[in-house]
């Protein structure tokens, strides 16, 4: 059943939070967004440290928004670990068990289980202030999980750690979450973490969720420009919608841009149930639009010019090349527009500044030219 957030509203003088979504049973949902978008506030609302102005929260079918924070049985892992400095590792993990009146025998068993789970057996008597960042975070996780919560909240748990540690630990977290099958809400601003860890990602902006979807869909089928440009790199071309037509790949659109007329997929796609509150605006012929495609959706054009078989052919001048080992990024200028291509290193590039490439029409998304 998972966590249900219905019509939650929290109004601040300079900010407004509106939430209505679901975290499925056993899934790891990422809350992703820029700082200040309200992800931590959302966690706090769910945890019960803040009260909503309206709306309800339900866990596994029963309401929890009417419960005080200490009765919601939610485990939380904080960015600063928040380990109790006056207790050792064993007592930290066992804190929740004591609060919920577990018997000593059961507690002991459970704590040992958890130490094993986070691979820190033998740490029982250590002082928490002497642990490294990674160890502290694992203890924090163990502590949160000990009293068998039905929901796990993680608030940027890895942001205080260095990159290498982060990569290792996030695998750990994922493994443990899968093993226990616990419903999890994970807040981060790190896109890589989001893409790697999440069963689904909810992208937030200014207090509401722009899109909830699987990582692939978020990446390839962003609901709007914000989502599209927040994750990964994007090429944006402004243009005007001139025609709609059918093709073997589905409904297509023709967009007139500075670099030529491009073919793109017509946005309304029935098999992408995006759970956002902003439904795609109906596009009309003659409207100003933005064509959106990822750098890796470009491929070099091998055929000499003149052959008009592959659509979306663009030619431009190479401005910059970045060799990244497994692939290379090329910045190209075409008709005043700056585009980025992401090509595998196998493709050798012509030496002349001129480059011809094409973009896969199916991968081009169209968005209305935003007024905001």
């Amino acid at each position: 059943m998972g966590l249900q957030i219905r019509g939650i509203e929290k109004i601040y003088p300079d900010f407004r939070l509106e939430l209505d979504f679901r975290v499925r049973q056993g899934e790891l949902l990422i809350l992703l967004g820029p700082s200040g978008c309200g992800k931590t506030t959302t966690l706090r609302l769910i945890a019960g440290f803040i009260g909503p102005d309206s709306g309800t929260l339900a866990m596994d079918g029963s309401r929890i928004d009417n419960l005080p924070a200490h009765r919601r049985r939610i485990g939380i892992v904080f960015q600063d670990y928040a380990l109790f400095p006056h207790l050792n590792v064993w007592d930290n993990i066992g804190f929740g068990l004591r609060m919920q009146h577990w018997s000593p025998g059961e507690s002991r068993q459970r704590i040992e289980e958890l130490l094993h789970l986070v691979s820190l057996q033998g740490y029982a008597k250590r002082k928490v202030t002497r642990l490294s960042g990674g160890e502290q975070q694992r203890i924090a996780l163990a502590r949160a999980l000990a009293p068998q919560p039905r929901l796990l909240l993680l608030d940027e748990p890895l942001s205080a750690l260095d990159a290498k540690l982060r990569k290792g630990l996030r695998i750990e977290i994922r493994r443990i979450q899968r093993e226990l099958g616990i419903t999890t809400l994970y807040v981060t601003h790190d896109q890589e973490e989001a893409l790697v860890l999440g069963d689904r990602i909810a992208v937030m902006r200014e207090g509401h969720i722009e899109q909830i979807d699987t990582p692939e869909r978020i990446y390839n089928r962003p609901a709007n420009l914000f989502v599209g440009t927040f994750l990964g790199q994007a090429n944006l071309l402004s243009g005007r919608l001139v025609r709609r037509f059918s093709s073997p790949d589905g409904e297509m659109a023709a967009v007139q841009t500075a670099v030529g007329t491009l073919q793109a997929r017509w946005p309304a796609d029935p098999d992408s149930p995006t759970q956002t509150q902003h439904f795609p605006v109906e596009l009309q012929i003659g409207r100003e639009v933005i064509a959106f495609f990822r750098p890796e959706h470009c491929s070099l054009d091998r055929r000499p010019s003149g052959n008009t078989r592959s659509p979306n052919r663009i030619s431009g001048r190479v401005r910059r090349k970045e060799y990244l080992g497994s692939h290379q990024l090329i910045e190209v200028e075409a008709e005043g527009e700056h585009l980025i291509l992401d090509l595998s290193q196998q493709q050798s590039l012509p030496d002349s500044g001129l480059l011809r490439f094409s973009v896969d029409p199916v991968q081009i998304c169209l968005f209305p030219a935003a007024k905001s």
Partner: protein
Amino acid sequence: MGKTGQSLERTAAGPRTILVLLLAPVAFLLLFFYFPLGSVLVGGLTDRGGRFSLGILASLLVDPYYLRIIGFTVGQAALSTLLSLLMGLPGAYLLARYDFRGKRLIQALTTVPFVLPSIIVVLGFVRFFGNNGILNRFLMSLFGLTEPPLRILYSLQAILLAHAFYNFPVVVRIVSSLWRRIHPSTEEAARSLGAHGLRLFWRITLPQILPALLSAAALVFIFCLLSFAIVLVLGGGPRYTTLEVEVYRLAKVSLDLKTGSALALVGAIISLVFLYAYIKAQQRSSFAERMADDAEKPRLGGMLGSVRGLFYLLYLLFMALVILAPMITVVAYSFQLRSGWAQQTISLEWYRRILSGGPYLRAVANSLFFACMTMLLSLPLGTVLAYVGARSRFAGSRLLEAVMMLPIGISSIILGLGYLKAYRQLPWTIVGSWYAIVFAHTVIAYPFVIRVASATFRKIKSSLAEAACSLGAGPWRLFLHLELPLARSALITGAAFAFGISVGEINASLMLYNERLITIPVMIYRLIGSYNFIGACAMGSVLMLFCFLAFLIIDRAGGEFG
């Protein structure tokens, strides 16, 4: 940060629990502080006919004599505070950047003068810094002079210096606590950009330690504002009169409590303003401390080789000496047999007398008993009030906190008088009973418990409380299992203060004691009053020993958390 700051409103106790918690403490305070206080202060707010009138206050505030007193009081407090800050900054820096052996010892020692009865403090000061004091005699014999070179006593300088010497440990304590947690990287970054020395301090360090500086300044200001014995004795006479001294004169001499009460009221209002400022500053300071960690510091011993290290060592020695010297003088004098400097025979005569029983031993036993009881009462009282204060968020809660700490701003003479006056109408009188003394001491001591406790409660990171809460700890268990253990070291410090203050309390005790209930300070007062200065010093030494031991033992039992 506004949104995160609200999280605690859901983890802390609800308004109903707070009300219940506050019931006992508030009742106690109403009965044993506000009621007696009111019965005295009401004199300043009523005219001869007994009707409420601001006439007396008004006439006070236009009388040039009293205006001068008020002006002087505030002025000398400001100067003393400035001096204390200047003297305390190097010490705070040392404590912040280095660790060294004997730090605890020095901290315990330098806190003792704070709780000693004023008469001993002054006696020691006179014997050390006076015209015929040890310092002058030493200098005279060293340089072959006939006249004492350092004539610093009985002047404004003496007042300022004495204030600074006794208050700068407070500055050191408060400021170093925050300074420790300032990450040196900000300074290093500034250095790499070319800032150094005073400029570095002014632009980078100072803004960061500012909350602690302000908090310490506010507190020291209040102490200097209400300073009494130092001004009375070391000032040299009526020319330097502060509010407290004038209140003392009026209360002692003429029972003219109209003017005295009005004056005390003015003093209380000024204190209240600065108490409020202190609490606000402390809030900021604790918040800043909360955000940072207390890392391990390099040891001072390693620095000794360099010139800088030597300077620090000298500073430490100088400060410790200057604070300890008067106390040591008193102790030294107690081992004599005759008065005057001519005949000095070392003798344990007075200690023999003290230990052989009789009134001296009774005074010692009584003082210990009262101090323990005061500790037992003021700890829960102060802790509950501090907790409620630190956790409440409604508008005006800071003001309420300031009011809770009001006894710091009230002369204990007025309090003692209040006890005498207030309970007369009641069928049963508590004056003459041991619990009257305990209650009076508790009222005087508990604000100091609040001071340390609330600073610590505020320092507890909200994430800790949230973590505990999410693990199933309701507000009560949150307090019991998280906040109380984390505040343990502060509570222990508070207990030590309560003990020390009770043992050294003189003014209220003088009003409330009888032969059975005599305490060490009263005995000292008596001994002085009848030429027995050696005996007074002996009893004073015993008192100092207790305070020092209490601070040391209890300080050792405490520890620092995070």
